[in-house]
């Protein structure tokens, strides 16, 4: 099975509220795809639609080319973490996984394996009602991993995790992708996906705003400025201006250069034997890139009803 997720033209309204407005994207295996957008952008509804919980008014969502509801032993095809708080408080964490395992014809020892994998073995026989938010999140991830599925959908997996937990889950996501799995991770905070996601689907108001690689996005957000620190400021400026760059004086002994890449700046200064202490290419962070995008396209106005 080619384990892609294909979402095409999903539309859904709840009364007068439009939740999905032509949502379309494809998620491919082997990398972590971030699914980002502000609250209410339609991330959860899209994920619920992919696993057949919500029925779209139009469009379709396929996993490996098939509608989720047609899958046999679905958790061996797709693992999903949707709402970590959705637990029976009276049942132990292990028993929660046990009934899930039984529903897929999986043996009981598989439960202990995933409990170990998420580091919950010691708490497994306690009632889930007493779990902290982070423990519930780990239990939810264990449930998603239970069927060893080629496709994983994780809705806000970072919620409630302590810093150590966030580091753990980033590593886990990268490992899962490196195994060749399709991993779709939603978040409303871009910073959480930094260094983890290679590809991003940015959504707003029920539709895709940008669907691009992280490098591409960062490059687009970076404006190619180079900051130069040199004692010979005037000399440097004249050399670079002659090469076609726009130069401006910055604070103290710095010069801001636009229109030339950093390696070209270094080459020119070396050629003209102008001394310099540092050349820094300005590279936008993923968060800045995201802010850039959302400022342009995603303006989400709370309480808005159309």
């Amino acid at each position, binding site marked *: 099975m080619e384990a892609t997720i294909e979402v095409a033209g999903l539309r859904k309204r709840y009364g007068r509220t439009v939740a999905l407005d032509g949502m379309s994207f494809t998620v491919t295996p082997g990398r972590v795809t971030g699914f980002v957008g502000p609250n209410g952008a339609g991330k959860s509804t899209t994920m619920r639609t992919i696993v057949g919980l919500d029925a779209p008014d139009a469009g379709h969502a396929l996993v490996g080319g098939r509608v989720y509801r047609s899958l046999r032993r*679905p958790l061996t095809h797709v693992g999903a973490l949707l709402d970590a708080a959705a*637990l*029976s408080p009276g049942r132990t964490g292990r028993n929660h996984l046990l009934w899930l395992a039984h529903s897929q014809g999986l043996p009981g020892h598989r439960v202990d394996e995933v409990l170990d994998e998420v580091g919950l073995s010691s708490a497994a026989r306690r009632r889930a009602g007493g779990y902290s938010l982070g423990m519930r999140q780990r239990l939810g991830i264990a449930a998603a991993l239970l069927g060893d599925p080629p496709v994983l959908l994780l809705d806000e997996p970072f919620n409630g995790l302590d810093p150590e937990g966030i580091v753990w889950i980033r590593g886990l996501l990268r490992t899962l992708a490196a195994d060749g799995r399709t991993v779709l991770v939603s978040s409303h905070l871009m910073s959480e996906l930094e260094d983890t996601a290679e590809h991003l689907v940015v959504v707003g108001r029920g539709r895709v705003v940008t669907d691009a690689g992280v490098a591409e996005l960062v490059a687009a957000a970076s404006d190619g400025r180079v900051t130069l620190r040199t004692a010979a400021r005037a000399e440097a400026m004249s050399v670079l201006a002659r090469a076609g760059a726009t130069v401006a004086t910055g604070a103290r002994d710095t010069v801001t250069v636009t229109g030339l890449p950093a390696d070209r700046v270094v080459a020119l200064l070396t050629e003209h034997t102008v001394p310099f202490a540092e050349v820094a290419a300005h590279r936008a962070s993923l968060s800045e890139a995201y802010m850039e995008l959302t400022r342009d396209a995603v303006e989400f106005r709370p309480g808005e009803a159309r």
Partner: protein
Amino acid sequence: MREFGYLLRAEWTKFRTLRGQLVAATAAAVLVVLLGAVFAAGNHSSCSEGPKEVACPTPPLGPGGEAVADTFYFVHRTLSGDGTVTARLTSLTGVITYPPPNHDTIVPRVEGLARAGLMVKAGARPGASYAALAMTGTHGVRLAWDFTHEVAGAPGRVSGAAPRWLRLVRAGDTLTGYESVDGHRWTRVGVAHPAALPRSVQVGLFVSSPGDVTVEQGSLGGSIEQLRFTQATGVFDRVSVAGTAAGGDWRRDYVGGHAATDWEKYHRPPGLVASGDRLTISGSGEIAPSTDGFHLEGVLSGLYVGLIVLIVVAVLAVTAEYRRGVIATTLVAGPRRGTVLAAKAVVVGAVGFVAGLVATAVTVPVGVHVLRGNGIYVLPVPLGTELRVVVGTAAVVGLVSVLALALGAVFRRGPVAVIAAVAVTVLPVLLATASFVPEGLSRWLLRITPAAGFAVQQSIPVYPNAVGHHSPVDGYYPLPPWAGFAVLCGFAGLALALAGYLLRRRDA
């Protein structure tokens, strides 16, 4: 199919890993047993003769093992082998003593199921096998045998101007009844097959007249039945017995006779007055299965408590998932929602059935044993009937659980589903038995609501020849056991279908 097996196992794991649900299901069974035991232990009966305590008299048993009432005036002689008895009935009259509304006059009126006619009986002992062809007070000619069987002949009443000829022909174990208005043209009424007629039988004329029933509303709701003594008098002539019969005088027996009532003492004693060819016979009593005694399903008094507990368990099996959001996980693991619902229904239904079976299988035999030890007469029933009560009631509990589960899936809110489930199962029983609701509606309630299923509990059937008021209050259901059970099955299936439809249509 394998997928269904997985989901079934998952639902069972879900059920058994919530301690509260297991405890509640067990408690439901224990409650039924305990309430039944307390109830049985609290019921006593004793009889005394003067200062001395004696065993209470028990009714005779008929050939089928059922308790019977067998009281009538019998004028008979012995017949060996095959033969025929014929007589003409020219009058059937009666009195009802002290009837309502004011209880102060004696009314000349023949009771509807009073009988005067011919009888062939294994002996004069109450409960002995028999066949009887008789004119009744208002129900025309009836051929009855062995207490529980009866076929109807021509309707009408008798008088001097319109007499009725009756003929009963014995050929081995088969008795054929005939009737005629003129003694020439005979019509066959039917064929009777008494179970245990020896070669030599008692054959002759008989008169019976059961108590007159009136029903009043009980002060706490329900109804109160009152019986008044009646007596019937039949006038026969042209009596003949063909075959190897003993000659001489008729023998007279007040079969199952009781102490004389004031009416019998001071006005007309029961018995035979012969005047030439004319035989006038007066008698009282009833020849029918007896319903005087404890019905064994009565020990299941705690059933409704257990049932409400199991309704809550079944409703929570689905509404708790909605409340906690677990339903999403369930439907992601089993996206075929109809199959998920079916798996849930099987688990919840099985839990209800097993809890119900433990409850009934313990309560019925233990309760009956305790009651008998306390001197209470529990009406005997065939083993098959007792099994039907035990297993059928458990099945009803299972089906009500399935119904409650389906209502939970339809309403998705626990209290609403519990109210709905109780309102369609327990409330109809309450309205039909313990309230001031008119009896017509009571019968309808137990026909067209899921409560009809409780009919499987009824251990004593209503026989066509039984006199009395067979109301829901006394444990008589308007539908036969399996028909009532089918109604409940239908409701459970319908609710499940609706739940499945909504589950598929709604977003989880």
